[in-house]
């Protein structure tokens, strides 16, 4: 029992140390991060303008969503989008090619911890740098946003859940690199699906009904649309907590998948080497 407690404590220690290390390193690239963040704004701003234009043409709303709500949706979108950025399959390709994976395998720690902790540190810096941008967007686009305390709490948890879901999903996808270098194709297809069924391009309520049904069975809605909806939308308490439960379900499923794939991946790597 004591050994287990010790393990948990040292793991926590690692996360804090690794996260702090990443924050320090990332802070040196503030300017570059800003440019990148601003570049990322084009996508949501464009969609915001398009839907707002349509809304105004139709007397103020599209399918019940007002211009103010669109503005709120896409501003919160920018934060959720950042929380969704994790280590890609192309990154796994690079990692194996550069020998970083060998170094990781020599350490008594699963490399996934390194990714989770490192990216979390990066997110901290990104969020800090994002705040002034959010303020500017707020002033420019006049959103309608009035969340309750519960909604804010659920949102805060949901963006962490989103981060975990996406990490696990892309990690299992990325590990396919161990068997083939053509992982790019699979990745592109998955991304296409995700773009459409996550609420990233179009708020899910504006998609045809059958698409919304399909989206319920995929993790993308829960890593993207749900956090935004929690804060911007008008979900009941049951729906909010239910959403968190769905996130947890997907995290468990995808983590399990990742761990299974990893076991096979290491075996494959150790047979072939670098």
């Amino acid at each position: 029992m004591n050994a287990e407690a010790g393990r948990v404590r040292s793991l926590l220690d690692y996360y804090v140390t690794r996260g702090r290390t990443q924050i320090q390193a990332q802070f040196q690239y503030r300017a570059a991060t800003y440019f990148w963040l601003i570049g990322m704004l084009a996508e949501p701003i464009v969609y915001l303008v398009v839907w707002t234009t349509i809304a105004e043409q139709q007397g103020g709303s599209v399918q019940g969503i007002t211009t103010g709500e669109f503005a709120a949706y896409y501003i919160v979108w920018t934060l959720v989008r950042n929380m969704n950025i994790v280590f890609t399959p192309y990154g796994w390709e690079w990692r194996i090619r550069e020998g970083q994976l060998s170094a990781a395998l020599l350490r008594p720690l699963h490399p996934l911890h390194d990714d989770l902790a490192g990216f979390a540190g990066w997110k901290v810096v990104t969020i800090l740098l994002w705040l002034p941008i959010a303020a500017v967007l707020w002033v420019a686009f006049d959103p309608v946003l009035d969340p309750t305390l519960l909604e804010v709490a659920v949102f805060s948890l949901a963006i962490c859940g989103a981060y975990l879901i996406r990490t696990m999903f892309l990690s299992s996808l990325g590990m396919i690199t161990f068997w083939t270098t053509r992982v790019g194709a699979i990745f592109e297809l998955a991304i296409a699906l995700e773009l459409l069924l996550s609420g990233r391009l179009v708020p899910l309520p504006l998609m045809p009904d059958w698409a919304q049904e399909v989206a319920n069975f995929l993790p993308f809605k829960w890593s993207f649309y749900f956090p935004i909806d929690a804060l911007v939308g008008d979900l009941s308490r049951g729906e909010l907590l239910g959403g968190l439960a769905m996130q947890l379900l997907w995290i468990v499923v995808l983590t399990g998948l990742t761990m299974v794939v990893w076991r096979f991946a290491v075996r494959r790597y150790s047979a072939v080497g670098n």
Partner: protein
Amino acid sequence: MATVRVLGLTKTFAVPEREAGLRAAAVSLFRRTTREVRAVDRISFEIGPGEVVGFLGPNGAGKTTTLKMLSGLLYPSSGEATVLGHVPSRRERDFLRQITFVMGNRNQLQWDLPALDSFELNRAIYRIPREDFTRLRDELIELLEIGDLVRKPVRQLSLGERMKVEIVGSLLHRPRVLFLDEPTIGLDVTMQKRIRSFVAEYNRRYDATVLLTSHYMADVEALCRRVIVIHHGEILFDGELARLGDRFAAWKTIAVDLDDGAGDFSAYGDVVERDAGRVKLRVPREETARVTARLLAEQEVQDLTVEDPPIEDVIEMVFAQEANER
């Protein structure tokens, strides 16, 4: 109890074969021919605690592959290996915490931050108690004299400096077994010497077992009492370094640059090469000083260098000798 025990260890790779040309490339899309390469061929040896063993051999001999199998990075195709009582390929956490693998030219530290921060990270990874960590870290920093380097971002360090901090970072958890793969590659002579003396000191102080690969004879001469010579995946020689040098590196090469390269030099030794102004002589090891003195006294020498026989030649001689003795 032996720290490292290896029995009949073998590793074969399937290497894809392809000919040049567009047509062959098209064919290779549909049909892949592979060739089996035996990187390591049924090697066996035992290493005791605290030994420093050098693995000598030319590129592609199988040295790195052997080390990778002993550290758990590669699965052996057949045979057994035990390190510190563990089977390396199982990659048990307790095992990984007691070893370290330093690869020359590979960066494991955080690029943008001072080495001290990366050390802190290693402390967390290997779960080193704080006091032990601080004490050992400071000792190692002092030993390698990198006190002012550890505060600079790693990317600002030169190649040699980077190697030094990498080594310190890899030893903070006080591993009992060190795998050093070409640790001095690409470094200048002073740095090479520094690293060698450091490893010797570390071995002395902490009684760590060191497995070192190199194709620099100098690395091995400085550190190892015992060498294992590997060629084509097989062990050609396993024994004391002194024996190897005596038996196989029996001669040296003297290269002289002269004004006038004509004339008969056969009195000095075997003439291996002759160019306008440059003559290369092969002389028995014991004769080197005497012949050098004679050359300098009797000839108009512009420049003179004394070279060890290249390792490939030594290996060849070892191979030839072993073949004869079989």
